[in-house]
């Protein structure tokens, strides 16, 4: 249809062609070669990093889900106006550069951070928890960034629910807890799934947060892309890794299309 055409063409020019460039770079050095892919699929570094990427992304997305659901739920129960104000809290993380944020996190979560000070005050000097510069740190950092991307799809699918269903359940004798698990939650699944997949894919592309808040093992594929682009100037390798990353997220895209066509961001059924 003609309305889709402008962006369709634009996408072709400004999205597909660049991707084609990357693909070209990944298979052509001086001549056609698959060496970079072979390396990307067999090199210990690459395999390990791919696994780390997968692990961190999934764990972060799930953590984000656990934290976002109460927020989305809370927002959905607010009258519209107040909802906008509460939603500000969700958007606030957007405005703080990750660099500043990483300092703030050390102030809050670090060895001598506010949280640990409180813990030690309450439970004695051994009570401190290491929350930074390890996997926990990465997950905290990513989660903090990802929450808005999870909250809004879930919120949309919560708002789309017919309140009559809740009443019906209540009249039939169900307690709030059961209503939540048997009605509210299952009906919000489209939003949950869309949000989770979106978050997984967004974390695939992260490299600054893991570098600043993670431990030595928390290296992600995007770090490798960055590394090869900027450090070793081996763009062929960078492109190959990027394409592998693209494949990985394509798997998720297909999942997304499979589970609920067009349900991204909790559109209406």
């Amino acid at each position: 249809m003609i309305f889709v055409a402008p962006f369709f063409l634009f996408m072709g020019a400004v999205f597909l062609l660049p991707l084609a460039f990357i693909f070209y770079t990944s298979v052509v050095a001086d001549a056609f070669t698959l060496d970079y892919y072979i390396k990307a699929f067999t090199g210990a570094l690459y395999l390990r990093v791919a696994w780390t990427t997968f692990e961190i992304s999934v764990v972060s997305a799930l953590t984000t889900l656990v934290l976002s659901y109460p927020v989305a739920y809370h927002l959905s129960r607010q009258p519209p106006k107040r909802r906008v104000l509460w939603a500000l809290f969700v958007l606030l993380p957007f405005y703080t550069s990750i660099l500043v944020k990483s300092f703030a996190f050390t102030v809050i979560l670090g060895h001598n951070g506010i949280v640990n000070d409180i813990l030690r005050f309450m439970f004695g000097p051994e009570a401190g928890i290491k929350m930074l510069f390890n996997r926990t740190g990465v997950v905290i950092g990513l989660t903090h960034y990802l929450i808005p991307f999870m909250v809004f799809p879930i919120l949309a699918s919560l708002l789309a629910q017919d309140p009559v269903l809740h009443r019906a359940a209540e009249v039939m004798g169900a307690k709030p807890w059961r209503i939540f698990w048997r009605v509210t939650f299952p009906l919000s699944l489209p939003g949950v799934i869309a949000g989770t997949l979106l978050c997984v894919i967004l974390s695939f592309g992260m490299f600054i947060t893991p570098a600043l808040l993670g431990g030595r093992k928390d290296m992600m594929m995007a770090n490798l892309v960055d590394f090869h682009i900027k450090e070793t100037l081996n763009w062929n390798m960078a492109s190959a890794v990027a394409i592998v990353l693209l494949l990985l997220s394509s798997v998720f895209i297909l999942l997304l299309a499979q589970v609920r066509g067009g349900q991204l961001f909790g559109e209406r059924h």
Partner: protein
Amino acid sequence: PGKAKASEKIVWVGWGGSTQAVQQEIFIKPFTKETGIEVISASGPNRAKIKAMVDTGNVEWDLVNMMGATATGLAKEGLLETIDSDLLAKWRGQSLQPDWIKDWAVGWYYWSGGIGYDPKRHPMGKHPRSWPDFWNADKFPGRRGLRPRVNENLELALMADGVKPKDLYPLDVERAFKSLDRIKPHVAKWIKATSQTITLIQNNEVDFDLTYSARVESAKASGISIELVYDSLLCESGLMGIPKGSKNKSAAMKLIDFFMREKPQKAWCENRIGYGPQNTKALAALSPALKAKLPSADDPSTAWVNIDWWGDHYGALSERFKEWLIT
């Protein structure tokens, strides 16, 4: 190669932040005043961008600040212009480290990395004073911080293993990695951002780390409790090079020449405590207090980075180091 006309304009890329602001005052403004060449300041020298500029023939940078160990990569790929040999000869004659004057880039100052610590937490005698000490976790218990890159680390590891600074090169890579294996468990954070080398000590996230004299001095001036061990430094060169295909090559060389001069170099190092001048006369003219924080070429406790060696090994070792890091 064009002639410097009065209306000429070049783009110069620095490290950004207040450092570049100071350079602007000390080097750029007088240079423009003297030559009439307009200099546009950019920040964030990004080697990938240089490569892309050269590859696509779209070179917008004329003069770029670079780090020693990594700049060689650019040269190897043929991404840097060759500098006039008579200028090179002139500069070598007046330099502290003539080795750092390359055909394709010019080391015009140096900075020093050393062991940083918080004197409040680790008063005199309770902190490592050398790299062997730094590696000795039994004697100096505490969380270490190192950088997640292969250069610097190999040198430090060999020094820690007993190699004299002057005998470092060519680096014994296997020995260095073995030595690194020993320190690995004690490193609490492989510090990605340079600024974190200060803030992590400040926030008590690490006890000792590799940090840099210029950063430490500036932090101290702001009231942060931090100190640097000045008698086991690793000195690296700050280089300046011209991307291949620059349209203002000769003007850029004029600017390099200005950067190499005694007077501005002296002013620069007086302003930014911790940076050392390449120009030997400038070094000699500094006050004793400043000199105490700057190693001289013949100081036996100081290691000077060999740019050439890294140029041959950086790419492969980087990847090996990354792999080592995550295992």
